[in-house]
């Protein structure tokens, strides 16, 4: 375990160093990620100056909802960057290198560094949103709440990790998965940012049962905020995020182990 931790820090150090070699560029790029993700939020903020609420959610409650997606992605990208870019690893033959080393495959992939610009951009945005909104939405913070929050964040990271682990496993069969991921992950994520209840039933079902983003931000946020639109869903949905996260991750992991046998190197 100690050994794994030291590996992680070594990778993190070299990753940060190489990214911040061109310091100004790294700062501008981090700011760019921050603003790109904030774009939709700024538009929402401007719209709510006119409309006040959306399905009874005011702007502070929305910011609290948004913060969960960005914080979980910020943490996710520290550990799962290699899975996000996994098709490249296969195409360039980097995965062969990983196979030759004396550590577990997934361990190495998870440790081998983060997309620090994305992590800082998303993470900072998430924290800023959380700090702005957490007090204003009237949550009575206590120990149980804090534990729920931490567990919800970890579950959110696991859910997104599972999705990417699943897509990585598909890369063993077909090398080009970027477009699939584009539609299923990135487009669905655009939906997931806003309250689930504004969508029609089909999209809601996709966000609950197919690409379960609803358990990353909507249901955990409902635990704290108890907005009236929660009435449309069973209450236990607020409590099963960890179950969803762990189950999905284990499923994706078995699929990954199974698919690994079909790996063929692309050469050089």
């Amino acid at each position, binding site marked *: 375990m100690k050994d794994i931790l030291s590996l992680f820090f070594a990778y993190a150090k070299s990753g940060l160093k190489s990214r911040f070699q061109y310091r100004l560029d790294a700062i501008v790029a981090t700011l760019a990620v921050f603003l790109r993700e904030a774009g939709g939020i700024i538009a929402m903020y401007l719209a709510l100056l006119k409309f006040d609420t959306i399905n009874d959610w005011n702007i502070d409650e929305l910011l609290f909802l948004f913060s969960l997606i960005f914080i979980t992605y910020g943490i996710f990208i520290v550990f799962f960057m290699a899975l996000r870019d996994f098709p490249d690893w296969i195409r360039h033959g980097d995965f062969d290198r990983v196979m030759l080393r004396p550590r577990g495959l997934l361990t190495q992939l998870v440790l081998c560094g983060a997309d620090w610009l994305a992590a800082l951009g998303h993470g900072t945005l998430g924290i800023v949103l959380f700090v702005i909104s957490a007090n204003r939405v009237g949550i009575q913070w206590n120990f149980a709440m804090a534990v729920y929050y931490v567990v919800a964040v970890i579950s959110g990271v696991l859910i997104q990790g599972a999705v990417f682990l699943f897509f990585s496993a598909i890369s063993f069969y077909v090398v080009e998965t970027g477009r699939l991921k584009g539609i299923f992950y990135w487009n669905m994520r655009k*939906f997931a940012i806003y309250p689930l209840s504004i969508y029609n039933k089909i999209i809601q079902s996709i966000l609950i049962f197919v690409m379960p983003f609803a358990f990353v931000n909507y249901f955990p946020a409902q635990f704290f905020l108890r907005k009236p639109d929660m009435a449309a869903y069973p209450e236990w949905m607020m409590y099963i995020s960890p179950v969803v996260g762990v189950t999905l991750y284990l499923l994706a992991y078995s699929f990954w182990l199974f698919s690994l046998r079909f790996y063929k190197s692309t050469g050089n």
Partner: protein
Amino acid sequence: MTRYLSFAAIKFRSKMAYRFDYVLGTLHTLLLFVVYWSIYKALYGGASEVDGVTFSMVTTSFIISLGLSSAFEKNEMFLQDKIKQGTIANELLKPVNFKLRILFEDMGEGSFNVVFNFLPTAVIASFFAELQAPCSVLHIPLCLVSVILGYIVLWEISFIVQSWSFTLFSVWGLITIKNVIINILAGAYIPMWFMPDWLRNAIRWTPFDSIYFTPVQIYLGELDGSEIAFHFARQIFWIAVLWAVGEYFWRSGIKKLVVQGG
């Protein structure tokens, strides 16, 4: 001129080769539209109009501005890659104006995306969303002209930011920031009518509302004859100003340019 038009035609045809791409491109634009359609459906909450703006005006505005912004996405790292790889030297040797050539190539790609990405999206959306028909048949060609002029404004702003690759290590960050600013201020993420007054007044002095909002206004018939002429003049004014600025950056960049090896 015919020479440049054929650059556009070649680009248009080469895009035809990737069929799967435009199915996914349409799906992408459609999903993007559904997000904003759902948001405003919830915001309206069944009300037929807010501040004199009907819900069908909002959806129509979104399909035009969001749809076009998605169709007009292009590779904005183009100039930087050419400079980094040194292949810009070959471009400078060719007996055509580099800027014009790229503009026409991009217009070829853009018009391809309008036909095979934007139009299918609009047709599919019209089955479930409350879209308005154009104000009159005459407004269709007028709208088309304003879309082309708007595209050139958009392209010019992109070129100016790209031309900083002569001095900066990477323009990726600046381009991303520029796109956020455009998408908000040009009304792709929020209809111009719902902007706070101070912001909308400020935008009137910038080129941003001539990109998507002028076509939206013409399509909906919000402008009468003389106003349309005024907005065309405004678009052309911004094209001239931005062209001059871009030209300045481009020339001073080329002077500084050092290409190693080759």
